[in-house]
């Protein structure tokens, strides 16, 4: 139901109210904001993209507010979806201010995993017009039978930070939730807010279907500076911590009033925080650390400190990339390569928010070759080559979760639900057979062949209406909605009760009571582990490890690596970074070659460890891992041996006691894309990888029930390891849809199969430089120091046992 024409007097009067409020803040609505209000009034959907802090929120909410002035109504009018719980409070406050300025009688409410019961009760009574919530809490709302009643008055949905959701399963879950809402309210308007992406059109179509793309002021200048190593200084050829530049970073931080130091991994952030703390000349409370595993309350305190200007420096990971709203800091420092152009842009945007000021970011290389990455990032940014984030397709685990939600929220008929699901981008090509397989899983447990008595998750009556009968199933499902984000982690808590955050189970399992570790910027001592919680106390002295989190390291993006190949090949690159890198590249040229854009360099060297083959496709560590396995497997076809491999973002290394004779032509055949899929299957123990991936799939699909702190005993009885289930399913029900999903995720996500295939096609079309340098080169050295990631060899349990026994004995004899 579009608002009365935007040229009408009433509309202009309502808009004037909003403009008047802008005027009291000494601002004028930007062109993109007015365009968004108008598009809303015309009943359209769309996506607003602009850097953080340019007024996207008001662009999106303006339309609904004007609409509400013109057509006042009670009951839930607008849903505001935000990716982070911690953002909800902030956003709700921000929106309340706007609502009050418009003198609307709207009540703004928040519904997230940590809402109070009073808030929940108000929501149940329908006591709000604007609801701020997360994708998971929306799914939860959709799981109640009165869902149609709850959303009866809903006019629109705004999805904040859509770029954070689009590429993952939470984005898929949200698409499904929106398809359900559209099914209830066909005239629903859907808007998204996003940072700049390489595929904005796709991002918009995924969220809003047919809509308009509205861009904010994009003319903000970004200056990328680099902490160049001093001339004559010995700078490392490899490494990823970069603490050598501590003095330089400290100077840069103290130079300004407030600074953000971005690290690429959580452990890197912890170590940098510790290093800075050790030399910090100011009051200790003016320095803080912020990353995704730290408890939301503590993170919020840090964000609040940034907002109020009490903090001078925060060491953070991408957890602060998310639109946490604070007026900008004076300086942003990036430790190590940002690994992606969009990420660099977003981080730089944290400084110099005020109009007219340019954003500045200081990049601190952790090893020499990163200088080239920084120069390449600057070039890519100038050419506006940003990374796309593609939505996931056809995730059967998320679909299973949604279909159960759908059954709880009023039930469904298969045909109608299939049509609704296919209306989303994520499932537009979902074959009916797969949809039915998911329903069969929910109804019978798996394919019809294997027996699953006593299993009654989903029932179907004679009319073909699907519903859930068991109260227990309903309760467990509602408890497990939202576990997409949770990983197998343990809470970290003080003995007295204060929560510090979460670390991975695998890290804690290596610790014994009394062991020390660094977390949330504090030195802690493990006291005991109980009920999914690691109890700690403050440690008296500083020692011990830093938790390692899985999936910490992002691969170098395709856009950046393409630019990097060009930059490295560019002999007269004018950038200061490239000039600083010149001596190193000269060594590389002298000892080996420096590949041109259409060339791929292959080096063969021997060291005391054996013989090494180095290949540099510059395709990111994930694709390299798949390629390394395939190459190892293909080498084994030529000469049987044990081949170990290591990877980094530039290339891969194959290590063996003895390598067969090779030349450029043999290498071309070994790297040929033909038969890639088959060889991946043969070379990588897909089963073992899928078994690990199955953990997440099983959790999302509700196959296993995740324990959580403070759970009652009857729930603990339901714990079973997903690995065991994986084995049981493979044995009894090999066609199970969730097994298929796990294997697909391994190929597409863990091994980045599409990029691997593209990379091999590029190599096949290009030229191969095969060199046998006498010693390690600047390019091969970092790979040589990487630890071995995998290998190809005879791999039955008998030989494993023999191998392990020998190594164990060697270790014991030491």
């Amino acid at each position: 139901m579009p608002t009365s024409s935007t040229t009408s007097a009433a509309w202009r009067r309502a808009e004037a109210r909003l403009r008047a409020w802008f005027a009291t803040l000494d601002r004028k609505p930007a062109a993109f904001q007015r365009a968004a209000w108008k598009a809303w009034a015309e009943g359209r959907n769309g996506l607003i993209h602009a850097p953080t802090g340019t007024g996207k929120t008001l662009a999106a909410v303006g339309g609904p507010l004007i609409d509400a002035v013109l057509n006042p109504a009670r009951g839930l009018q607008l849903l505001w979806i935000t990716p982070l719980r911690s953002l909800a409070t902030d956003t709700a406050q921000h929106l309340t201010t706007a609502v009050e300025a418009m003198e609307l009688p709207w009540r703004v409410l928040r519904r997230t995993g940590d809402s109070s019961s009073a808030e929940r009760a108000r929501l149940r009574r329908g006591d709000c017009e604007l609801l701020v919530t997360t994708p998971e809490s929306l799914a939860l709302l959709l799981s109640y039978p009165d869902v149609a009643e709850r959303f009866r008055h809903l006019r629109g949905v705004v999805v904040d930070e859509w770029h954070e959701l689009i590429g993952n399963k939470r984005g898929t879950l949200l698409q499904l939730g929106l398809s359900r809402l559209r099914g209830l309210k066909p005239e629903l308007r859907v808007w998204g807010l996003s940072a700049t992406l390489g595929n904005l059109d796709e991002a918009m179509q995924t969220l809003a279907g047919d809509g308009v793309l509205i861009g904010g002021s994009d003319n903000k200048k970004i200056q990328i500076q680099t902490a160049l190593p001093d001339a004559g200084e010995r700078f490392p050829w490899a490494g990823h911590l970069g603490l050598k530049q501590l003095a330089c970073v400290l100077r840069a931080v103290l130079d300004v009033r407030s600074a953000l130091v971005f690290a690429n991994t959580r452990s890197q952030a912890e170590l940098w925080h510790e290093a800075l703390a050790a030399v910090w000349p100011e009051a200790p409370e003016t320095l803080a650390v912020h990353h995704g595993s730290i408890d939301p309350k503590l993170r919020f305190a840090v964000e609040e400190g940034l907002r109020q200007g009490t903090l001078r420096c925060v060491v953070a990971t991408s957890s602060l990339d998310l639109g946490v709203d604070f007026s900008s800091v004076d300086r942003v420092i990036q430790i190590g390569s940002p690994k992606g152009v969009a990420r660099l842009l977003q981080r730089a945007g944290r400084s110099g928010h005020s109009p007219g000021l340019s954003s500045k970011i200081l990049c601190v290389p952790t090893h020499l070759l990163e200088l080239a990455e920084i120069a390449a990032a600057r070039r890519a940014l100038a050419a506006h080559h940003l990374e796309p984030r593609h939505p996931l397709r056809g995730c059967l685990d998320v679909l299973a979760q949604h279909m159960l939600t759908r059954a709880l929220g009023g039930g469904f008929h298969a045909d109608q639900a299939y049509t609704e699901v296919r209306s989303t981008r994520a499932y537009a090509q979902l074959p009916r057979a797969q949809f039915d397989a998911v329903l069969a899983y929910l109804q019978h447990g798996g394919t019809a062949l294997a027996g699953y008595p006593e299993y009654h998750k989903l029932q179907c009556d004679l009319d073909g209406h699907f519903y859930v009968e068991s109260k227990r199933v309903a309760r467990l499902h509602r408890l497990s909605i939202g576990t997409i984000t949770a990983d197998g982690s343990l809470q970290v808590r003080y003995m007295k009760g204060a929560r510090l955050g979460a670390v991975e189970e695998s890290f804690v399992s290596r610790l014994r009571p009394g062991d020390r570790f660094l977390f949330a910027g504090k030195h802690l001592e493990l006291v005991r582990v109980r009920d999914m919680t690691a109890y700690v106390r403050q440690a008296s002295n500083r020692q011990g490890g830093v938790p390692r989190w899985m999936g910490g390291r992002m691969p170098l993006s395709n856009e950046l690596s393409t630019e990097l190949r060009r930059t490295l090949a560019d002999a007269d690159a004018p950038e200061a970074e490239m000039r600083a890198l010149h001596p190193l590249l000269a060594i590389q040229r002298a000892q080996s070659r420096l590949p041109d854009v259409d060339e791929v360099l292959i080096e063969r060297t021997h060291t005391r460890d054996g013989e090494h083959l180095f290949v540099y496709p510059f395709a990111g560590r994930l694709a390299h891992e798949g390629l390394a396995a395939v190459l190892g497997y293909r080498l084994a076809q030529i000469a049987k041996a044990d081949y170990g491999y290591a990877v980094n973002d530039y290339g891969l290394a194959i290590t063996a006691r003895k390598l067969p004779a090779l030349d450029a032509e043999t290498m071309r055949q070994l790297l040929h894309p033909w038969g890639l899929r088959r060889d991946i299957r043969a070379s990588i123990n897909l089963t073992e990888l899928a078994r690990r991936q199955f953990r997440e799939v099983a959790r999302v699909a509700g196959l296993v029930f995740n324990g959580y702190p403070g759970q009652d005993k009857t729930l603990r009885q339901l714990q079973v390891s997903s690995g065991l289930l994986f084995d049981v399913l493979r044995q009894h029900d090999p066609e199970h849809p969730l097994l298929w999903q796990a294997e697909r995720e391994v190929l597409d996500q863990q091994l980045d199969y599409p990029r691997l295939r593209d990379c091999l096609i590029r190599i096949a079309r290009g030229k191969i430089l095969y060199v046998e340098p006498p010693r390690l080169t600047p390019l091969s050295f970092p790979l040589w120091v990487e630890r071995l990631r995998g290998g190809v060899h005879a791999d039955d349990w008998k030989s494993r046992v023999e191998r392990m026994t020998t190594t164990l004995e060697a270790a014991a004899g030491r």
Partner: protein
Amino acid sequence: MNELRIRIAGEMLTLHSQRALFWSRKRILFVADTHFGKGAVLRRAGMAVPTGQTLADLIRLDALIAHYQPTRLIVLGDLVHGVTPADTAWIGQVNVWRQRHAMVEMSLIAGNHDRHFNACELGFDVIEHQLKLESFTLRHAPCSIADSYVLAGHVHPGVAIKDGWRRHRLPAFRFGRGCGLLPAFGALTGLHQVPVEPGEKVVAITPDGLIELPMRMD
């Protein structure tokens, strides 16, 4: 290697890779944490687990009984996982299996899971708390007792072994100074990994037999 003979508290014990322990002088077969019927409990809660796990476990027990010809089977607690209706398939299967071995005396040291279910109905004589047998004390939950070596279950012990770039998590027998732990017998049971204590003897169970971990005095 499917069997390993070790001396504990002065007695020769045989460890079997099917997660069982045989005391040959007394002809007693020990297993722990069978968790019969766990699949059914999970299915009733809406978790898709195919049937057949309990039956498979019973067949493994059949093979062990045929191999060792014990006069007595002692289960160190958690014989069953939880309550299911009397007509659930696994209860019938256990009953048939029990009758097949009518000549074998079967005892259960009651564990925390067993309080929901009367194992006497399955033909087991149920011993609360613990049972002292010569130099051993048999219990469900481990503890240390002066002048007696404790054999227990409950923990589902496992070890992680580094193998090049990989780590294998394996079920294990663990024998400390005063207490030995049996791995969980049931196929649908998980592992609890605890760091190896100095002086502890650990025997890991791989799909291809037992390996004894060398002692490390750190």
